[in-house]
């Protein structure tokens, strides 16, 4: 199911809207809520959000296409984000990404997010995650990992069922 307006989602959005004197301000938080439940933001989700916030759909579409964290298509069940910025690069971030790509049979030199053919893992580089003192760092879905050696990465991945 790429999108369904559940009661739960309705309630969450109704609550979010109360945080702002202007409905439009809730849009990013609403998209976060949708992505949390469905993994990505489909066209139906854009139209539903626009209607809910009384906006033309373009106002939702234009933020969906701007923010790197928002997904316009389904991604892997486990999304691994490796920080690539300077402090992490000095600490072995490029080697870490290469290790993960090789492990999953992905192209270690390709740009952008890549997903395994079984849809289980997505690997991508992201910019500084604000934990440069514990480089290299990565996220697996919402969980954050510091000082990720290759062995530690294997262990994290091993726990993804």
């Amino acid at each position: 199911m790429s999108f369904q307006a559940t009661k739960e989602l309705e309630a969450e959005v109704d609550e979010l809207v109360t945080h702002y004197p202007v409905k439009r301000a809730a849009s990013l938080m609403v998209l976060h809520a949708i992505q949390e439940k469905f993994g990505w933001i489909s066209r139906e989700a854009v139209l539903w959000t626009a209607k809910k916030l009384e906006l033309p759909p373009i106002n939702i579409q234009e933020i969906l296409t701007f923010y790197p964290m928002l997904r316009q298509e389904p991604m892997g069940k486990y999304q691994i984000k490796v920080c690539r910025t300077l402090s992490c690069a000095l600490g072995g971030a490029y080697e870490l990404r290469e290790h993960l790509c090789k492990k999953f049979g992905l192209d270690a030199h390709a740009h952008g997010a890549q997903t395994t053919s079984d849809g289980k893992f997505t690997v991508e580089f992201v910019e500084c995650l604000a934990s440069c003192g514990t480089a290299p760092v990565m996220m697996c879905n919402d969980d954050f990992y510091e000082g990720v050696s290759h062995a530690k990465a294997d262990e994290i991945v091993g726990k993804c069922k």
Partner: protein
Amino acid sequence: MAQEYKLILKYADEPGYTPDIECYLRHGGYADLKKALAIAPKDLADGKKLSPQEQIREDVKISGLRGRGGAGFSCGLKWSFVDRKSGKPIYLICNADESEPGTFKDRQIMYKDPHQLIEGMAISCFANDVHLAYIYIRGEMVDGAKILNEALKEARAKNFLGKNICGGGYDLEMHVHRGAGAYICGEETGLIESLEGKRPYPRIKPPYFPAILGLWMCPTIVNNVETLCNVKHIVAMGGAAFAKLGTPNNTGTRIVSLSGHVKKPGYYEIETGKATIGELINDPKFGGGLRDGRKLKAVIPGGSSAKVFKAGEKFKLKKKDAEGKEILVETDMLDLPYDFDSLAAAGSMSGSSAIIVMDDSTDIVEALANLSEFYAHESCGQCTPCREGALWMSKTLHRLTHGEGRAADADYLVKIADNIPGGRTICAFGEACSWPVQSFVAKFKDEFVAKGAADEARHAKQVAAPVETKELAAAHH
């Protein structure tokens, strides 16, 4: 001898210290908010009265507090610009976007001591007649947003937020707003647009100074997490006492994020200016020096946008001699006191107080290529010089680090960089993306030229011996 001085991070790393409100209250939490709410109007000699709010604002001025987000602008002065006569509501936003590469200090506060931030914000809101405030936290800090939401809930339940706070007749509501992975949301007007639910395109100043035309075109205060926490301590100890911490014009403490090639990377809170860059890198109390057998090559002193220092670089700094006369003293880069003014005098900045250390194993061209890729990715795209310039700098550095460089690329990079800042762009990102390029190339020019020249020489040979070309192409792939 330089020491750590824990004001903001006094409890955060104490064993057993937890982010919940009970723990915070056990450590004296919210006493300063109560103190602020109980301040009585003060009679002035001319018969006028100074309201409690005005007294706090005055004290913040006296404290000398400067913004911890990057620009180091006086907090008291920023607050004095707020349009209080417009009749519109005044908003306060805590900038918790923490996305300047190298920086990881706000994270420590929000994850470990969220109520300190909420108390600092509540006092700042009270002092500025704000009744609705937001914490704009970067999207990747998923747990941080949860911790803050939980803390807000606790604070509401205990009436430190909500209606008639602590019976003092003051109402305040606060919400967490999450970003979604874009660096430009840290720029205050981009942040405001983002909060309004739009693309985070920074606004042009003038006329859109947040203090006058901010969130929903209302007067708005945007302050960094650490700045707002400091306000709590100013109320606790008084502005004059706060001003005694640190050094003149560089008051209070700073939480320094130290990363890269040091033995003990981490965050260290110091009295501003009471430790040098060298001490922060080498002292066993701080970074503990470089890895064994390595020598220092370069230091980025204030987040990725700050101009780089080269090991051994010397600066002439103004100092007062014994008779109070101003003299110029030659100072090694490592002996620069870590504060706003010394680093500015040395041509860089303390920015978000993030030091990135690079030892002699670092390929300096690769390092700059890494940063330029960041800026090319993060330019919001509104201004042509920034959007195109950031991209072309990154492309040029990409070819220099992939065997396709030219000796002239060093000059080419500087030419692009020089054409971005200086009023040609809407926001300071233009400066932020050109400073690393200008400074890296100026200070390590021979390495850039050598790399490009080597590529050119190799290519010239390949033309003579076409067989090699294939091999090289394969090697580059």
